């Protein structure tokens, strides 16, 4: 699992590329699958708490169908066109899952069960080791800055 800054940057990159007005909705979607799974870290403070049970309960949020359903469920929290809201949050969820599928694992990528509930098999690109998250952050940051620069340059060119 990459860290949250990587997920946020990936969401921001997509929002910039699509010139989305409400970037925060994609960014929210980009961290949404992880928000509930963080509950498992309570085991650090409460050793008797079984994080297996929490994992089983929050696992669907970390899948394509579960993530999109969660995006629709939280849509009424926003006073904004619901289809647009659900779409942008879902897009963010997909960036999250795509980023997580790049993580190197030994066996089936637990975080890449894209076909759940039809299949539990995890798919992964097996590219990045989790502890190399700084490389991912820096790469994403450079890409984000480059897009911003190109967009600003194009805007100035069009004005001129």
């Amino acid at each position: 699992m990459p860290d949250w800054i990587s997920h946020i940057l990936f969401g921001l990159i997509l929002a910039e590329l699509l010139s989305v007005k409400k970037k925060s909705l994609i960014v929210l979607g980009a961290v949404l699958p992880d928000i509930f799974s963080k509950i498992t870290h309570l085991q650090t403070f409460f050793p008797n708490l079984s994080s297996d049970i929490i994992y089983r309960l929050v696992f669907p949020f970390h899948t394509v169908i579960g993530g999109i359903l969660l995006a629709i469920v939280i849509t009424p929290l926003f006073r904004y066109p619901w289809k647009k809201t659900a779409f942008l949050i879902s897009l963010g969820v997909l960036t999250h899952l795509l980023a997580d599928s790049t993580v190197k694992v030994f066996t089936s990528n637990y975080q890449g069960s894209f076909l759940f509930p039809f299949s539990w098999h995890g798919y992964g690109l097996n590219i990045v080791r989790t502890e190399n998250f700084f490389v991912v952050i820096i790469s994403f940051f450079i890409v984000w800055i480059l897009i911003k620069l190109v967009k600003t340059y194009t805007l100035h060119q069009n004005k001129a």
Partner: protein
Amino acid sequence: MNKKIWVMSVILLLSLILYSYYFHSIYFPGPKEFINNPEKYVGTEVEYQGKIAGLTKDGYYFVYGSDKIWVSFSNPREPVFGVVTVYGIAQADGTIKGLSIRYNDYLWFIYPVSIIGALILLLIFLKEWKIKRWRFVPCRTG
């Protein structure tokens, strides 16, 4: 928003949660499930990541909350400010025969970095939304 779609989504999401709750362990047996019933998972490939203790030249204990699982692996080392991932085969005596291990050095840095990430998210979010009557309303500046 269309209420029917919302209610349907809630029902489907709850169904997925229940399905995952009852069948998750068949496909991804968690450490606690393995500790409670090792015979059930004999020969299963497992991949666990976490803190370690009791390091010897023959293996180490994978620490899971208040429980420990012995992992046999020759000449392991302590991770540097991080955790160890083991890939191995579940044994009937509740231990794991380690086939390969990975040292995730400096992985603990991911937590402060993610806290910074959460603050960035909050900043981006509050730039575009404000709370009004329990709902998020677009800011004029956003």
